[in-house]
Structures are given as C-alpha cells and as structure tokens.
C-alpha cells in the first residue's frame, strides 16, 4: 500500500507540461470526487496527461515514489470508486478524448479513454450507426469510466452492458507496462481474456488509456410506451406479455413518488391522468403497423388481466424524448436529497418474489424515510433510493441506511443476487462484497490485482482491501 508522500509536482509538470498539474482547493475537490457525497475528497494533486506515454511516465514516477493513483473519468460514478480520500494523485483522462480510425468494415472505432460517452454516441450516429450503451449521465461519463465500471444503462435488455461493446483496450498497469488487449478481434481464444478482467475493475488494475469500441446498426423508428401498473408482480407479468410479441430495447420502471418529483421539478407533463403506484417504460422498434397492432393487442390483454391501469405511446420523437425523461431525469431530480442508493439485482425469473421481500423489509425499516424506486427491471435490476430527511446528519443517515442495507443484502444473498448490479463497488459497497462474492472469489481477485499492480498503487482500498 502506498504511503502517500508529498507529490513530486515539478516532475509531474515535466511530464505533462505547465498548467496541467493542479493543487488548488477547487481542483482538488472537483477532481477528487464523483457523484457520491459521502466521502470528503482529499487528493494531493491532480494531473491531466495527454498521451499514453505521459500516463506511463506518471505511473513510473508514482511507482518510484510509492504514490497511489486514482484514475478519474467523468466522475459520475455512484459508488465512490473515483473518490480520492487519502492523499492520492488523481489522474484524470479528460484530455485523451480523441475518436480515431473509424473502420466501417469492422464497425469499430478507436477512442481515447477520455472520450465522453455521448461523443461516441454522436459519432456513431453521424456514421449512420449506433453506440447502444446509454444512461442519464452519458453527457459527462467517459468511455474509460464506462469500461472500468462495466456500465449498463437503459438498453441492456437488448444490447447488453459496456463489456459487450469493447473490442479491444489498452491498459497501463501498476508497473507502467502498456498492455494491448484483444486488438479488436471478434475471435481470439488464446488463453485468458485479460480485457474482460479490466472491464469492471474500477481502476484497480491500471489505467485504461484507449479502447476500440464496437458499433451497431442504427435502430429504426423507436416507439416509447409508458404504462401505469398496480404493483411490482404485475410489472413482471407485463414484461413477459410484451416480450412474447415484441423485441424490447428497454423495459424500465419507476414509482409514483419518483414520477411526482420529476414532474414537479422538470416541468414535464404526466404521461396520463391516472395515478398508478408504478410505471413501466417500454421501448421497441416498430416496423410498420404489424408491431403497433401487436403492441396494442398486448396492452388490451394486460388491461383485461388487471396488470395495467392506463398507458400512452409516443406519437413523435419529441414525445418519445419527453417520456424517456420521466425515467432518465429521476437520478438528477433526487440528488438534492442525498439519496442512499441500493443497486440490486437477481435473475429475472425470481424478481417478483425477491421484490416482495425487499419491499416488506424496506417499508418496515424506513417508516419515516421517503423511498424512491426505479431501475432496469427488465434486467432484474432495481435502484432503491432512500432520501435523506432534511436536518438529519449525513453520517448518521448513511449509518442508518447501512444497517438496513444488511437486511436487504441478506435477501439479495438468499436469491443469489448482486449487491451492485451496475454501479460497481468502490468505497460505498466495499463492506458488503461478501454478500455477492465468496471468500475464495475475493481472494483470487486480490491475487489478480497483485499480478497487475504488485505495489498496490492503483486505486488502492477500492472494491476490497489487500
């Protein structure tokens, strides 16, 4: 473990040039934390390299000085993986944001780690293609950060996680070595696929400096439907009914308190007058009247069964966008309440029973706290957000939530689920890793970390302690 000596500022500046090393309080706070607000940032310095060689030189220097590094992307992470609390050097990839070497035959493109997710989405659209990983923070998050958290988002049900779109990546390890992993190959069965170890490693194995990303065919005419649903089990029945008839590209849900907050704070119209305890948002490609008729027929069946109370469907792209905002704006809308986030999952078939149990525990444990449910329920993944009551001390709040989390995670464990479906572990979920991973698994993870980072300078203390 690094013992955080004073940063070698002059040497850092010699590597990256003047004006690219910061130690002022504003920069330390800005670059030293992510979207979480539970840990005060305290990095020793911030450095912004502009090339792979500069990253390697910084890592060599840090290794020589035994200085810990926190790789930093768009800092939108929700598990404090990118928070520097212990005098680490923050290595921010913002400047390495070039998109190059688009290959229309392979449908791949080379991205610097600092390319913003939305920048890649836009680039793909300009080529008539599609980069399908998408979520509310894609305007700020970076490809390097997405890879390091294996980000999921709102299109996983059809297009999978970030992992599925990384054709190759380059990593600077804890020794400063540059690894060129998989080189864009579709098929490459030559031993361990180290690329997949790096995806989701939250910066603990090294710095992702570049990635070759796969692009997809652009979807045609997407229709967005919002349905009012009486309870969580009905949500899963609705999912099943629609999936029998249509290929869904999204199946999201949110609760009435979530909708009420978004409508009030974003000035958006409600989808329909009927108030329902839960709402499902579906997206599918409509190839003409056939799909639309099928969708209507399923809707009628669901109403007949009592699984759906009311619904609407987008008649234009503007409406599609506004309906999506009802779901996508939730995270940002509730941020002022410093929500304590649980990001839990189980296999889809077990979701109804699983949620029944979780809901019962949560309602009993938090009679006074406001609870906001939303998430990617079509993937078996829900975000359970507990809002901090005004005036309650933040540490006390986190402590109380942590206690209840244990009850929730007991259920997660019994269902063979995950305590962090897509947000990673970082600092926030570190104490709960054993609910989803066995001691033997965690020990092998430690050994893998040592193999990539023998000195333990890469984001130490995140995910697990050595």
């Amino acid at each position, binding site marked *: 473990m690094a013992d955080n000596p004073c940063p070698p500022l002059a040497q850092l500046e010699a590597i990256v040039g003047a004006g690219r090393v910061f130690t002022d309080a504003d920069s330390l706070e800005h670059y030293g934390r992510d979207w979480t607000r539970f840990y005060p940032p305290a990095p020793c310095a911030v450095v912004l390299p502009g090339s792979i060689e500069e990253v390697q030189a910084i890592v060599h220097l840090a290794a020589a000085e035994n200085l810990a590094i926190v790789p930093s992307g768009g800092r939108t992470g929700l598990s404090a993986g990118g928070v520097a609390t212990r005098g680490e050097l923050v290595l921010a990839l913002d400047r390495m944001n070039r998109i190059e070497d688009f290959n229309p035959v392979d449908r791949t493109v080379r991205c610097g780690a600092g390319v913003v997710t939305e920048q890649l989405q836009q680039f793909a659209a300009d080529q008539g293609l599609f980069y399908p990983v998408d979520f509310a923070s894609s305007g700020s998050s970076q490809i390097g950060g997405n890879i390091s958290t294996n980000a999921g988002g709102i299109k996983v049900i059809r297009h999978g996680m970030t992992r599925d779109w990384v054709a190759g990546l380059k990593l600077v390890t804890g020794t400063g070595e540059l690894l060129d992993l998989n080189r864009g190959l579709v098929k490459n069965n030559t031993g361990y696929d180290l690329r997949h170890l790096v995806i989701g490693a939250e910066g603990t194995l090294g710095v992702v400096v570049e990635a070759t990303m796969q692009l997809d065919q652009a979807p045609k005419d997407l229709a967005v439907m919002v349905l009012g649903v009486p309870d969580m089990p009905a949500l899963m029945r609705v999912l099943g009914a629609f999936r029998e008839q249509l290929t869904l590209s999204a199946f999201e849900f949110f609760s009435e308190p979530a909708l009420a907050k978004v409508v009030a704070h974003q000035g958006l*119209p409600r*989808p329909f007058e009927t108030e329902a305890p839960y709402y499902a948002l579906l997206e599918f490609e409509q190839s003409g009247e056939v799909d639309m008729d099928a969708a*209507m027929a399923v809707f009628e069946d669901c109403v007949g069964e009592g699984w759906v109370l*009311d619904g*609407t469907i987008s*008649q234009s*792209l503007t409406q599609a966008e506004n*309906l999506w905002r009802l779901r996508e704006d939730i995270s940002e809308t509730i941020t002022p309440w410093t929500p304590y986030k649980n990001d839990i999952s189980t296999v889809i078939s077990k979701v109804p029973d699983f949620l029944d149990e979780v809901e019962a525990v949560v309602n009993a444990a938090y009679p006074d706290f406001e609870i906001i449910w939303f998430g990617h329920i079509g993937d078996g993944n829900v975000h359970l957000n507990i809002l901090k009551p005004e005036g309650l001390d933040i540490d006390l709040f986190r402590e109380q939530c942590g206690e209840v989390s244990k009850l929730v995670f007991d259920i997660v464990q019994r269902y063979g689920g995950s305590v962090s479906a897509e947000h990673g572990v970082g600092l926030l979920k570190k104490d709960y890793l054993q609910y989803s991973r066995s001691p033997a698994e965690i020990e092998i993870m430690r050994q893998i970390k040592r193999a990539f980072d023998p000195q333990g300078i890469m984001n130490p203390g995140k995910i697990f302690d050595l």
Partner: protein
Amino acid sequence: MKVLVAVKRVVDYNVKVRAKADGSDVDLNNVKMAINPFCEIAVEEAVRLKEKGVATEVVVVSIGGKTCQEQIRTALALGADRGIQVEVEGNAEPLVVAKLLKGVVEKEEPQLVILGKQSIDGDNNQTGQMLGALTGMGQGTFASEVVVDGDKVNVTREIDGGLQTVALTLPAIVTTDLRLNEPRYASLPNIMKAKKKPLDVLTPADLGVEVKSHITLLKVEPPAERSAGIKVADVDQLVDKLKNEAKVI
C-alpha cells in the same frame, strides 16, 4: 358549436433532415413523420373547447396521401370526433390547401376553424390567412389565448413588443402559436377508440378544386458548414481578435 381543425403530416421535428444527393428535394426516405407541432396545438385547443362544453363536435381534416390518415388517427386519439382526408398526392401549395379547406368549410359549416400558424417543413405561414381571404371570415393569427364568448371569439396574439387581443365574430379562423397550450399524450385506450371513429375520404374534385402547382422546386442544398470555434489564450488575445480579425470593436 362545430370546430374544424386542419392538421399536416410533416417530418418529425427532431429529425435531422438531409438533402437528396442530387439536390432535387429533401430526403424523406425512411424518415420519421409526425403531426406538425402547431397543428397538434390546434387539435389540443379544439379538444379543450369541447371539454369545456363550448364545442360540440371537433372535425379534423388533413390534405395529403393515404399516409396522412396516421396523423388524422392521432388527432382522433387526442379527442377529435371524426376525420376527413382530402386525397392529394405530393406536396400541395398553401393556396391549393386553402382552396381545398374552403371547400371543406362550405361543406361542414364550422363556427371556428383552427390551424397551425405554419408547418415546420415549408415554413410558409400562409394557409390560414389565405383561407381567411377566400372565405371572408375574420382571422386571429399567432394565437396565445382563445376565448369564445357568445357569438364572438377573443384571440390574444403574440406580436412584436407585446400582446394584442382581437375580437372576431364567428365563424372565424384562428392560427396557433407555440404558447397557446401544451398538447397532451394520446392515451392507449383513446388510440384504440380512435380506430373506430369515422374517417371520410374526399377528392379535390368532390370539392370542385383543381390542384395546380405554381412553384417549381429548383434545388435543395444543406446550409454551409460552420467552421469550428477557437480557444483564445487570454482576454488580450480575445480583444485583439475582435478588433483586428472580426473587426467588430
């Protein structure tokens, strides 16, 4: 009181339109189409008048090929009672549309005709005014508020420097501006009910109108690409560039 609403099928507001490679027209192949946003506002206003008990029937008319029935169905789902399609292939010019609408007005005898102030494809802003001239009805254009009061309608208009309210004797014509209302979503039950609402198809001949074209489209080309901005090092350099390069100060 019967209200007639005209709606147009146009390229969806959010689509980035492209010119055809040969520059002959805008490329509409595989492009999302939707109801013109100003027409959507017109439908919403008519439906609100009906909900308030002011209007008794809302008839929606669209002029175009068979596909424009989709937009008529959308309007029916939003609350209109029946639809009329006047079948015209290709893009009818505002004068032709106004003449066809005049034919429909004579047939239906509405007390109020509500149209969008313009369609976002042609941006002509002519049809409502031409219809006013052809029918001799009073017109309140760019409406941000519509209040029916007995045999009059008071229309608040957004004009340069403020708001103007005109009182029109019914029957009258209103064209909508953006701030008149916020259209609702069509609910799925209403979309299904809309499928059963009556939709009549008329031809221009039924209305005694000959479809003529007075305009020839010569060329469509995309606007020149804007050159990228630059970053200046400091205020001095900015002032220098504004003075000596842009010559604006």
